[in-house]
């Protein structure tokens, strides 16, 4: 017992020294881990206009001090916690230094087995680009959105929508499902009549046979969305009474809708820097817009953009009636070109069936020009 009591003070001193060393090493590890963690979170702190010094002082140093304190490491002024950086090429090297002052000073009375202080350092490297001053002086959230509209940003919706050539805008209701037909909408430019360049000639196709089904020349007025009956050259049109809108005129008929430009108007349908409209027309280029909606489910059966323009450029093909197939990426519809004739069908028809249909085509009663424009092919 006596021996133990004699040795006890030395044991206490020894354990105190060991504790100080272990504690110092722990702080050293925390300093390393802290700098690594803090610098890895710099991306989350950056805001417009922040500069290098702000990153160093407001972010790295501030959060490192908090990190150490949260792990019971003293981070007061006497600990001289300091953070600095050096830009080395594309890298920013952050160096943190820290002075640890042992609190167990009893051994120092007798001998200097413990130093008065220990200095630690830690290093972390981040891309120097994170220290560049970001200048996001563009639009703020509020400026990008136009609060007065619900679905258009950056510029006025009404002006843009009025310029669009789609005529499917509808305000009323229809009563039936839309099935089993293709309708072509051909813009007409007829001077001196109320339905000027906002008029679209309506032609439809039932998908089973090539036949011009319209018993009269139908037109849609883009302004009131209603169908009109016109004379043969569309110089005179009258509203079909009792029809609230264009879609309601074709209940149970429409599956696929072509929007087709016959180039009769002067709109710049192709903006090619090296060619006039006439030269492009002569080249045989043709652009169609197409919506394909599956029966009953009303879902699109293919991406509109998946249609290959090549399919409409039949001047690339041998003379009629050699045909060409283009399948949609989804495989749900097929574009068939027979010379100047373009047919879009749902892919369920076999080639033989389609040929049978084509072999029984009635002789068109209109000119070749009409034939061509109706199906959207120029030669």
């Amino acid at each position, binding site marked *: 017992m006596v021996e133990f009591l004699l040795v006890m003070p030395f044991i206490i001193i020894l354990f105190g020294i060991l504790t100080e060393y272990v504690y110092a090493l722990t702080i050293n590890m925390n300093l390393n881990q802290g700098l690594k963690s803090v610098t890895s979170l710099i991306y989350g702190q950056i805001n417009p206009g922040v500069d290098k010094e702000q990153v160093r002082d407001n972010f790295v140093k501030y959060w490192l001090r908090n990190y150490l304190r949260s792990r019971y490491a003293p981070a007061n002024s006497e600990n001289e916690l300091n953070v600095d950086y050096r830009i080395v090429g594309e890298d920013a090297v952050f160096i943190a230094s820290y002075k640890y002052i042992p609190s167990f000073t009893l051994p120092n009375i007798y001998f200097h087995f413990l130093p008065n202080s220990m200095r630690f350092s830690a290093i972390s490297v981040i891309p120097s680009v994170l220290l560049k001053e970001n200048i996001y002086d563009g639009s703020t959230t509020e400026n990008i959105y136009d609060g007065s509209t619900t679905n258009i940003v950056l510029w006025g919706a009404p002006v843009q929508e009025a310029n*669009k050539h789609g005529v499917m805008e509808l305000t009323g209701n229809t009563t039936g499902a*839309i099935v089993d037909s293709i309708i072509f909408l051909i813009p007409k430019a007829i001077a001196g009549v109320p339905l000027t360049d906002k008029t679209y000639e309506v032609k439809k196709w039932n998908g089973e046979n090539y036949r011009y089904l319209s018993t009269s020349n139908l037109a849609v007025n883009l302004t009131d969305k209603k169908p009109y009956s016109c004379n043969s050259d569309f110089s005179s049109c009258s509203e079909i009474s009792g029809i609230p809108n264009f879609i309601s005129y074709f209940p149970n008929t429409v599956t696929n809708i072509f*929007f087709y430009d016959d180039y009769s108007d002067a709109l710049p349908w192709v903006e090619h820097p090296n060619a006039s409209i006439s030269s492009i027309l002569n080249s045989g280029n043709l652009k169609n817009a197409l919506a394909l909606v599956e029966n009953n489910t009303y879902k699109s059966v293919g*991406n509109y953009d*998946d249609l290959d*323009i090549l399919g409409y450029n039949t001047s690339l093909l041998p003379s009629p009636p050699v045909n060409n197939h283009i399948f949609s990426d989804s495989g749900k519809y097929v574009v068939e070109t027979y010379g100047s004739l373009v047919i879009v069908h749902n892919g369920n028809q076999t080639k033989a069936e389609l040929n049978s249909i084509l072999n029984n085509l009635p002789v068109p009663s209109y000119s070749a020009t009409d034939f061509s424009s109706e199906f959207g092919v120029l030669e």
Partner: protein
Amino acid sequence: MYMIFLFSVILAFCAMAIDATIIYNTRMKLQDATERAALAGAELFNDKFYPTGTLAATIESAAEEKAEEIFGHFLFGDLKSVNTTIIADAKYSNKKILVKTSAYSPTFFLSFLGVQSVKINAKACAVSEKMDVKSNFDSAMWTTPKALYRSGIIYSEDNSTDTSISKPLGQISSIQNFYSASYETNTPIFRLIDDIDNHPLSLGPGGYLLIRLPAPIVDKPGPDLFIKEAGKALEGYFVFAGIDIDPFNPYLNNATQGGGVAWKNITCSAISEYEDLNNNLVPYSVSTTHSGTQEKFYGSAYFDLGDSCIKTSAGNNANLSMAKYIKIVDDNSESAFVKRSLGSSLPSSPPYSYYKAMLFGEASTATAGADIDAIQILNFVRLIPPPEHL
């Protein structure tokens, strides 16, 4: 006597504990330096380019040198005099770099037993890869001073000012029989934004998409962002990069805007995915009603945050180093670039010739607007379990 023996044993164990802690500390720093070196080296791989042969070998050498240079920065303090070595091996083919290091950690008490130092090893492997932005990430969280919050498409049904997938002109909302292909009943199908699979999310005429990125886009050598616009008609859109105005009060959604988001149009940096014979696939400036002149682009493209074309309103370089948000806005125009397919002198292989065409009626189709198939953060560098060899 027993006390002396006991005391010696305790002392020996304590000495070993201190030496072990010192070795552990050195090992931790060596591992940290090794990982940082691997990450820095992998940053030189670029997802846009796939060099082979000599060029690939040159980049591999540069990546290895970069790793060694970064490792050299760490030879400071505890690692200053521990006789370190480093071996870096980079492969551009899989965009990986393997770094192996070693050091001799000196001992303090163990030296009395003749053990002057202990050899410690570390290794790390980093890979540079594309990160697909998805509508929702199960595990990807943003760390902010305020909170953790989930990445994904920011959308609020009650208020469309975060994200608005516009329906086609003429859509019949009451019976939904001419609906956007990107809608399911009344909800946009955000899951269409995933990877490149030709199943895009069509923005609709003037529609837009606001995404909180799963990882920040940090400007690195080469392009930093890739947007895949699906279809053969290359449609137009604007791209804005954004960061929180106040990172301590981040933007959550329109209802909880925090400090708001600052935006910058980065479209001028766009480089088309396709090579165009006539160089028509370039950014175009258009006049807008609410935001002055803005650049837009047609089709899939790579974007570079650090491009010097991105200017401040005063005409100085914007120095965008990072972005947390991306906003893609349809150009609300029925036009697109299409591949020229007529003419006797047309090339039969890339580069093809593209020209601008009007797509009348496109705004009324089920896939109106730009068709965003995928959004990818390029050159996303991360650590992976290190193999023995690449």
